[in-house]
């Protein structure tokens, strides 16, 4: 990070006519190291991960950790209530059933495992992986983007830190067949 008080980034946006054009152009731009790339589509298109060069999502690890926490926590909870806490009188002897009884602990353990795994998937997606809520994002500054991106458009964005490269990238996008090409200046407080 430089010492500048304001860190300006430039978003060069362009729209393609179909998914094939988007995928091939994105791949080209990635090989040319044009800048930080992202695509915007109304639905997941097969091949987009390869075009952007994305690794498999790490949300699986979060799900595993959440599920494990839920399962271990549930077993501990039941053990505490039915076995360990004789002091508060929680461990109630009913019909002399064994205080630690693995088979009957299974349903609650399973349910809490699923619950915590699910909550951690959605929670981590929203907050960590997506960085939401974020209602204002530079790409929404383009009217053409808002009009089609979430319904039928095939958009790509190249994010640049240096102003010098903007015109070259804009020209490259147009050469690849992009329409509605625009540049958005995003001044973030550094």
């Amino acid at each position, binding site marked *: 990070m430089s010492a500048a008080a304001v860190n300006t980034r430039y978003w060069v946006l362009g729209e393609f006519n179909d998914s094939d054009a988007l995928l091939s152009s994105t791949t080209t731009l990635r090989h040319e190291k044009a800048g930080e790339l*992202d695509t915007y589509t*109304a639905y997941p298109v097969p091949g987009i*991960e390869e075009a*952007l060069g994305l690794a498999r999502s790490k949300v699986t690890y979060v799900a595993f950790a959440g599920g494990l926490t839920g399962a271990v926590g549930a077993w501990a909870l039941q053990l505490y209530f039915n076995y360990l806490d004789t002091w508060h009188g929680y461990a109630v002897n009913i019909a002399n059933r064994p205080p630690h009884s693995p088979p009957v602990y299974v349903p*609650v353990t399973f*349910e809490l495992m699923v619950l915590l795994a699910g909550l951690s998937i*959605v929670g981590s997606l929203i907050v960590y992986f997506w960085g939401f809520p974020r209602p204002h*994002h530079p790409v929404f500054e383009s009217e053409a983007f808002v009009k089609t991106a979430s319904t039928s458009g095939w958009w790509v964005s190249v994010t640049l830190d240096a102003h010098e490269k903007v015109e070259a990238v804009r020209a490259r996008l147009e050469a690849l067949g992009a329409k509605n090409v625009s540049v958005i200046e995003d001044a973030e407080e550094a």
Partner: protein
Amino acid sequence: MSSEPTPPLILGKQTDESLTQSLLAFVWDKPADGWKKLMGVLTLFVLMFVASLVALLYKGTGVWGNNSPVGWGFDIINFVWWIGIGHAGTLISAVLLLFQQKWRTSINRAAEAMTLFAVVCALIYPTFHTGRPWFDWWMLPYPSTLGIGPQFKSPLLWDVFAVSTYGTISLLFWYVGLIPDLAALRDHTKNRVTATIYGIFALGWRGSGKHWNHWKVGYLLLAGLSTPLVLSVHSVVSFDFAVSHLPGWHATIFPPYFVAGAVFSGFAMVVTLMVPARKFMKLEHVITIRHLENMCKVMLVTGLIVSYGYGMEHFMAWYSGSEDEFTLFFETRARGPYAPWYWLMWFCNLGIPQTFWFKRMRTSVVWMWIAAAFINLGMWLERFVIIVISLHRDFLPANWSMYYPTVIDVMMFLGTWGIFGSAFALFLKVLPAVAISEIKELNHEINHHAHHGEQGHSIEGNVAPAGGH
């Protein structure tokens, strides 16, 4: 097997624009008169529910028809019935996703919404059946100064965890699928206020490729979690009965047979709702006869599993040599005071679905709607038979007593219909009833295969473009 080709999943040549227009039309149009009238009637039902609830809270559970020995009546019958209905939503959205059944895409959104509302209706019953609902938090494990915690060896407590987990995960699954469509609603509207409201729920979704990468994995994981969950919920509900020692309840076949019954009744409810909705909302191009026919096939299979369950219960009653079991199944049920309802259950759940062996019946929209109504009734009767008939004649004839629902019971049940129906009607009006992004993905896949000329790779016989209606 069949000589004719499988009909397509999406009728006509559709583009992303045409799908956006047709699937959002109902949301943007002014409410139709029919919709307003329906909401008016359903609101009356909701008010009836409120009235019955006031009576219940004022006087206590004595306003219900429950007595001794029939300690569980309409409350548990309706709880199990509503929870069962919810299962189709999860099955369609999760299990069929894992099995890559493309036809789920048109109906999953509405079925998931139905699940959520059915779970809400179901939860009303145990909440108030406790008698003192303001103490319901005693069911949760917390450091209580009363010196007594929840009994984790009781299926009734497992139910607390199973149903609340089920409701939460269903809501999350529905919402994650809805986020891209909420963004479409946000960007498609001309109205600033509407855009703001949808924008808040869309969280700032912009369809980023990096986000889709996480979305796909997260959605698949949620489906993977929901699949065992949907099997576990009704299994746990069945444990409420199966773990007891009452003839008619104490059967090891209960968990699978309850799960099959839940899916059976759930699909019947999806047909009940979607057959009129697709016509009224002009969704025939995405919810095609093929979708409806597939649902009829599921009802036939699950109906047969349920009937096998009934048969096995009777077989075990005879084979076990237990006099009490035998009396219940072959005397009390077959010839007792509630025998007509018992035989009506057989007619609805075994008889009616047999018509679905015939393609003409499976593809008749009118017949499948009537059949679904019978199946809804039959599955309600199943719970009535299991609960009331098993309880009303217990081991001592001196304890025998008939069970009759009271006016409050009936008002409350019809009231939950109002809650369910009005919530569903409201859902159809404010949110897209069909998962738009998923339909477009399917449409893209179909057209892409056709475009690249891969005839051998037609999706499930979906050789597109289908060439008009």
